[in-house]
């Protein structure tokens, strides 16, 4: 049976090669070469059939049909009419025209040297610079009590900053004058860490919020259908707040924020209390909706889920005791690192691990309570280090290069024993 599978795959590959595009999957191949729409659609349906194929025989059959489709696509090109070819070329040129073209990144909010001190308290937020652009996500990270929520409340106008300058260039373009808060706040949606209860059914709440933002009549219906379907909430529109789980409360809070069509969305610890799959869904939704081509949104988000945040954030702002210790594009994290930092999960004792890694390039091995953190010379690549671990029989349960991870910001800022935060 394996031979049959291989033969079918070879026929498919050979067919692709003959048509001039080896190595591309069938959907790409059809998009680039099939003049007939039906053939392009068939490519998708065949890919579905292949993914759903149960066992090698079904896979072999799917490959056979794919090879036939490749033949049909090649044949359709040679027999297509001039009009078909022109229409096809026009569509491809549409793609080419828009390839890589992205939204204009308007500055929605800019803060320079922002600061705030609570009266009588020891905590003080100082010197925060911010630039929030439409279509970009800025992740704010830091330990609890380091000023993230204070910063967010300043940005959304719930707390007046004591130092620095705050502007909303694309929301309130009158430079040099006092901020027109009623106008600015219409374009800002804030989802706080502690979600306040909402009263009424979820449909009533969403309709009401849309109507407050001038979406009435048919527009109100469309706005509700759009956000409820997009966030998969249609089934829950008749529920009340206390009938929803924590995950759905957050999704409704997000729906309520988005239905107001904000230009700036501020999310304070939205992932807390969510299970892993819900976290991924929320982040994917926020990322997709923020990067809309037609209505891009600037997003400011805080979270303790570092790996997830660094996957979606364009910029990172790290707060430590009310001060910024890193502020820049995600690509710049670890740019000037003097050492490589690797995280290793293994059941080896530290003495044993030290013995197996006793080379000058390894500078330090520490344990953070869950895993080892190993600092090495910059010349030690992750692949080479992992290879050495395996060569020396280290049972690797988990391995991660932290050098360019935001987690590294925490690792380098860990207080010494006895130091208070």
């Amino acid at each position, binding site marked *: 049976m394996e031979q049959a599978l291989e033969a079918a795959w070879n026929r498919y590959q050979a067919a692709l090669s003959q048509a001039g595009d080896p190595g591309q999957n069938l959907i790409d191949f059809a998009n680039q070469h099939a003049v007939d729409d039906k053939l392009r659609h068939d490519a998708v349906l065949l890919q*579905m059939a292949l*993914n*759903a194929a149960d066992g090698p025989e079904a896979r072999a059959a799917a490959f056979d049909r794919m090879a036939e489709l490749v033949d049909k696509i090649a044949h359709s090109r040679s027999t297509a009419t001039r009009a078909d070819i022109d229409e096809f070329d026009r569509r491809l040129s549409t793609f080419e025209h828009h390839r*890589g073209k992205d939204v204009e990144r308007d500055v929605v909010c800019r803060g320079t040297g922002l600061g705030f001190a609570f009266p009588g308290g020891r905590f003080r937020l100082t010197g925060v610079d911010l630039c929030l652009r439409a*279509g970009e996500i800025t992740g704010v990270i830091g330990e609890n009590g380091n000023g993230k929520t204070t910063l967010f409340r300043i940005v959304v106008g719930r707390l007046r900053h004591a130092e620095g300058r705050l502007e909303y260039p694309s929301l309130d373009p009158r430079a040099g004058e006092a901020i027109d808060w009623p106008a600015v706040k219409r374009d800002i949606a804030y989802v706080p860490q502690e979600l306040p209860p909402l009263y009424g059914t979820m449909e009533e709440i969403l309709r009401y919020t849309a109507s407050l933002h001038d979406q009435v009549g048919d527009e109100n219906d469309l706005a509700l259908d759009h956000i409820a379907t997009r966030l998969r909430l249609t089934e829950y529109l008749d529920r009340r707040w206390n009938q929803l789980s924590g995950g759905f409360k957050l999704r409704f809070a997000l729906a309520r924020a988005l239905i107001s069509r904000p230009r700036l969305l501020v999310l304070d610890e939205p992932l807390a209390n969510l299970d892993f799959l819900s976290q991924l869904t929320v982040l994917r939704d926020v990322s997709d909706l923020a990067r809309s*081509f*037609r209505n891009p949104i600037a997003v400011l988000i805080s979270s303790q889920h570092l790996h997830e945040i660094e*996957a979606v954030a364009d910029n990172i702002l790290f707060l430590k005791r009310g001060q910024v210790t890193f502020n820049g594009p*995600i690509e710049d994290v670890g740019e000037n690192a003097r050492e490589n930092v690797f995280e290793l999960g293994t059941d080896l004792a530290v003495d044993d691990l030290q013995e197996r890694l006793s080379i000058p390039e390894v500078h330090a091995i520490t344990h953070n309570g869950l895993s080892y953190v190993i600092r090495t010379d910059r010349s030690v690549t992750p692949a080479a280090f992992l290879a050495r671990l395996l060569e020396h029989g280290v049972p690797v349960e988990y391995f991660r290069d932290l050098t360019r991870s935001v987690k590294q910001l925490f690792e380098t800022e860990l207080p010494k024993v006895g130091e208070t935060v």
Partner: protein
Amino acid sequence: MARSIQIPAGDIGERQSAIQKLLASSADEAFDKLIDFASDFGGRDHKNDAIIISSEYYTVQRAQDRAVISFDEYSRKKIAISYKVLELIDHIVRQYPVLQAA
């Protein structure tokens, strides 16, 4: 740019291709992206159609989850709905230059 793979929001061809591929591998995500695609590049009717098609898919999905319909019936309906998705995104791509010029 974020570290996850991001397609430029304005790249209509790449976004069409992403929906086609997700239909085969992760249908729920494909329907989310269909709504975003229609909102970004289509007109009001396209957006409505995307919502209706997605709702239809979720209804069929729920019916399958609750064993109201057989797997064969679910598969047939899913293929029919997927075909509607492919036709809609094609239509949006064709109309996009016209809508842009208007």
